[in-house]
């Protein structure tokens, strides 16, 4: 199963993740 998030944000939003990285619920995805 998969969860896809799709959202609008200002252009200075940046992800703090890289593909393949394990992640837990509650961890930040990125920041503004």
């Amino acid at each position: 199963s998969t969860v896809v998030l799709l959202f609008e944000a200002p252009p200075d939003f940046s992800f703090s993740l890289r593909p393949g990285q394990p992640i837990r619920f509650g961890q930040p995805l990125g920041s503004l």
Partner: protein
Amino acid sequence: APAPHFLQARSRLLPLLVFSGTGYLGYDQYGRYQDRRLAELGIEAPPPLASDNQVALYRSIPTRLVSRAWGRLNRVELPAWLRKPVYRLYIWTFGVNMKEAEVEDLASYRNLGEFFRRPLKPHTRPVCPSSCVISPADGRVLHCGRVVNGELEQVKGVTYKLHDFLGPITWGSTPNTGGHDPSLPDPAAFEEQLLCSPGNQLYHCVVYLAPGDYHRFHSPADWTIEHRRHFPGPLLSVSPSVARRVRSLFCVNERVALAGRWQHGFFSLVAVGATNVGSIRIYCDQELQTNAPRYTTGSYNDRSYTSPLAASPSSPLAASPSSPLAASQEELPGIGLALRKGEPLGEFNLG
């Protein structure tokens, strides 16, 4: 004396299996060697996509039927003496951390389905207070980044169209049931339609949940859900190896898309089912039924959360007493369902 007939047949079959197996391994290793060579030269090898015929062959497998049979099997109550060995095998196979589970006693789970959707102990997953958007689930990041020209990436280099994934934008107008959209808009124009503020961008993040992971998902931000769209469909595997080979996989599989707004504009969470994990439950939506035979693939079923009926306490959309949302859900008549970051939102179930 001549060997029995079955032994003769086996002796003929064995070399065939050995040769074909060796040949396949050799071919596979050669492919990996080529990829390594290209990587050394600084050339990124394109993902080996499955052909249309291969995808059609895969889609011809009755995955929905298999999934429902699997779900039915996993709802059967196991005898007490069998529970621990079965769950221990599952824990060992998929690396489940039972110390995080709210109920650690294996014997108290009546079946594998119940074990699969086990809740975690409170405060096991602290929610980041400073970030505006958090991971909704445990898993692995398949891809994340910007949406470019109305296209998303399921893994690096394998794209799918936003319009095919979400369907036409009808929220805010009359809810559509069982609709088909014959028109295919320009992908970039469709992306523009979703944006609320000029200058903003669309971002996406794909989180894959492996079999041993915690299979509930939570609100990734403070947002208001306005609309739910259920796409019935086949239930192909969504494992990274398949996602790398099947283009538009997430536009094919059964899924539930929740759309709404957050502080920066449009916000959406889409739960995509898979063969083993075919049914999706949204706690605030008791009307939603996924992986049910009555739905035909290729259509979608909409539900608006902004109508006065949706927000009334007697509505089927109101949280049920058994729902984790019962105490915390905030219903805003005419606006939608307001969720705070980290609140329980739904779960995946076996079959």
